[in-house]
């Protein structure tokens, strides 16, 4: 082929690069591995992740739910995972119709009117929601409860730092574990967004309706974040509570934990704000013969057209993960999502009851919960949980000192439909025994 285009060597292909910029040595990366060697290598590394093989009660923004087998079968269809963004609708209807269904399902679950085609994850979706509130209200203050996931708060901070938005944090109520009464009071005429998470980082359900009223009373938008999407199956929707923007982490819906990503951000709002939404939107369209199809629409919001004036810089989103979530939501369906949510609720309640009865352990927060709760133990939680892992082979929870250094003995426990009663009982017993060492 070189010949066909009149070249003599591969080097000539790079004639337009100045000599002094060429790398004149081989890359100092390893020589090629065969399939066998490569798989061995990764399997060995995988074995160094002891946490992956254990019964686990870790939540805090990433959840172990059962993934129906068909999800991965559909994900690995060549036509889905090796396709690009559906820029050419005539040969991309598979992706487009899927996204349209995804948008609809997100609306149904959140109780909102419109949803986009996905964001990177829950945390960036939340940050973009704050930016959007600024665009909608033309105000420059955001108020958030400190019961929002600490990493989500960090991401908001990063995103708003140069956007002229001031972020105020209001401490949560340390008795209920919910946001404090002061949160509603903090909203003023400058406030663009009141940001709350429910169930919050501690697993407590917030009184979203009350907060919506407080926000609306001052002309602010209520932004609700949900990290545990399964809660949509049991809790009153943010939409029904009056939320203006709802963002969620969709990982609970058919997405493997995979050490934190790729996940998928859900983003929903009211119809009137549709043109302020960040990211892609798919809409219904018809061809000349009146056949229905779907297209990327309202593109004038986006960076490739509006450039620096776009509603966001996002381009590539989480298409394939949105597909996984769509397959999950449709397979589980109305009754499956309800049932899984119900089991989470019941199993977490059972676990909480039993843990609270172990000597030295208590539940510091009184707020209602879905499937996560904070436990206060008799010793340093990091130490306790590390013992539990080593001696009992259980990932018992997330020590909170990482986020709240003042609470060395507290940890967050999450229970889902995948945790059997036997696992819960082993956890309870294990907590008792390792705390007595």
């Amino acid at each position, binding site marked *: 082929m070189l010949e066909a285009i009149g070249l003599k060597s591969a080097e000539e292909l790079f004639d337009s*690069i100045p000599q002094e910029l060429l790398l004149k040595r081989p*890359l100092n990366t390893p020589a090629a591995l065969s399939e066998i060697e490569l798989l061995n290598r990764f399997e060995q*590394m995988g074995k160094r992740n002891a946490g992956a093989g254990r019964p686990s009660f870790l939540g805090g923004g990433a959840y172990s739910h059962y993934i129906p087998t068909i999800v991965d079968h559909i994900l690995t*269809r060549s036509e889905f995972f090796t396709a690009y963004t559906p820029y050419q609708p005539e040969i991309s209807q*598979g992706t487009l119709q899927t996204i349209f269904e995804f948008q609809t399902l997100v609306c149904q679950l959140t109780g909102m009117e419109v949803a986009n085609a996905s964001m990177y994850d829950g945390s960036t979706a939340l940050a973009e929601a704050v930016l959007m509130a600024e665009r909608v209200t033309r105000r420059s203050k955001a108020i958030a409860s400190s019961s929002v996931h600490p990493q989500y708060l960090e991401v908001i901070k990063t995103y708003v730092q140069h956007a002229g938005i001031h972020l105020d944090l209001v401490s949560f109520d340390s008795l209920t574990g919910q946001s404090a009464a002061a949160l509603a009071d903090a909203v003023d005429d400058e406030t663009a967004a009141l940001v709350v998470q429910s169930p919050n980082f501690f697993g407590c359900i917030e009184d979203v309706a009350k907060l919506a009223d407080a926000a609306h009373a001052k002309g602010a938008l209520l932004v609700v974040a949900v990290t545990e999407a399964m809660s949509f199956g049991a809790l009153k929707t943010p939409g029904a509570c009056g939320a203006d923007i709802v963002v969620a982490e969709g990982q609970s819906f058919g997405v493997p934990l995979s050490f934190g990503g790729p996940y998928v951000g859900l983003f929903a709002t009211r119809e009137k704000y549709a043109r302020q939404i960040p990211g892609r939107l798919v809409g219904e369209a018809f061809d000349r013969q009146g056949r229905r199809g779907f297209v990327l629409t309202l593109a004038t919001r986006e960076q490739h057209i509006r450039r620096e004036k776009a509603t966001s810089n996002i381009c590539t989103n989480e298409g394939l993960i949105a597909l996984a979530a769509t397959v999950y939501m449709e397979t589980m369906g109305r*009754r499956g999502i309800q049932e899984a949510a119900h089991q989470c609720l019941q199993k977490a309640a059972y676990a909480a009851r039993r843990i609270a009865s172990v000597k030295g352990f208590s539940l510091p927060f009184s707020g209602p919960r879905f499937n996560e709760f904070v436990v206060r133990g008799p010793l340093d939680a990091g130490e306790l949980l590390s013992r539990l892992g080593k001696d009992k082979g259980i990932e018992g929870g997330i020590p909170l000192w990482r986020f709240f250094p003042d609470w060395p003995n507290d940890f967050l426990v999450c229970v889902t439909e995948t945790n059997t009663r036997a696992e819960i009982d082993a956890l309870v017993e294990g907590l008792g025994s390792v705390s007595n060492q």
Partner: protein
Amino acid sequence: MTDGITKVTSHISPNEQLIFERSQQGRIGYRLPALDVDESPIDELLPQEFRRDDDLEGVPEVSEVDVIRHFVRMSTWNYSIDLGMYPLGSCTMKYNSRLNERVARIAGFANLHPLTEEHDAQGALQVIYELEQHLAEITGLPGISLQPAAGAHGEMTGIMIIRAFLDARDGANASGRRTMLIPDSAHGTNPASAHLSGFSVKTIRSTAEGLTDLDHLRELCSHGDVAGLMLTNPNTLGLFERNIKQICDIVHEAGGLVYMDGANMNALVGIARPGDMGVDVIHLNLHKTFSTPHGGGGPGSGPCCCTKELEPFLPIPRVVKTDWTVGEPTFRFEYNRPQSIGRVKAFFGNYGMMLRALSYILTHGNDGLREATEAAVLNARYIANGLTPDYDKPFSSPPMHEVVFTDKRQTRKGVHTLDIAKRLIDYGFHPMTIYFPLIVQGAMLIEPTESVGRQELDQFIAAMRSIANEALEDPELVRSAPNSTRIGRLDEAAAARKPVLRWKPKSD
């Protein structure tokens, strides 16, 4: 239809409704174990006012077979890399190895919770560490963060790093440096990312040759307000900015930093390194150059790579190597980095993409990485050669990994880039990127990548030439394309005018 259509034939294609239109009350597709704990009365667990009361009305009720058929049928409407070349310029649609997919599904990674204690996640940290090492070697930039979730996210991260650096360097004076220079040929995410980071954008012109206009750059740099430059190299016209070193010098002398959009690294891996060119910070697209699948629009992964000087500003946490126990290195996350711009995403980035990219690097090996680059450039050159007789090539220099043509010759007959693109569909090809970059009227940006053999390149060239011929002899045929798809051109204007963004039950 033309005899020249060799890649496809017409065949039956399954129809499929929206899942909501298929839903039947009472059908289920899930199977969960029975609840095995004592059930508490719901009122005790959750006060009525917090409970969902719409019984999830509208959420579909379908069987497992329904779901399978639904998605299998819809999938057949998609073009995909596995069906053939996907010459979208700037998108680097290369083959997604099945092996990488398998690696990402190894239980020790797929089932690992991101908040697992470090000592129980050493393998996961090792992957991050090793991938960072390799990317540092490939780019010549030693400071790496894998946290950004896509290219645009990496841009935002890199630009915020530049800003944090300037603030640290210049203190209060930095507020005078809030201009980001961006060529008119840049991708839209560049200005949008600059804006997100609080910069105002000034546009640099391109020369007739398709390169950055140095004089204009000098002029723009003369006002003392320049924070930096965002440059794509090879640029979006597929041309290597051969003055890159000089460009970097000009910006550096003006007190600014150089950001390189690494979307086109597929032209450089193993051949030349941004770090050696004077670039300060770059993002890579693992979903382009390093072959992680695009998945119909994502996920991506947009690592940010920077100089030693900028390293303190990278997002937290970073992975650091601690010491060696029994032959195995150990790693930990480092959070205490006071100069960091902060966190750009929960957890550690799109981890699954890192596994795939590392697998790509290791299966190719250093030689293989270079060979892939050579093949990618060779293929683009071959296409450039093949199409020059029939299409206007606005820039005469030989292209790197992608090449831009225009519809100039075809417009005489009223045939435009969009028509040519749509007609390619009839020929069985996914169209190239069209109307980008914006500075080229009627641009057709073609990037074959290394994942295509000569047979299919020849087929593509033949198709394009045949279309050029049709544009002369039967322009209406081209203007009405595609004629052989299950759906014709959709009325996008109408769709945007009165957007229908979700399904609603008929009765509504």
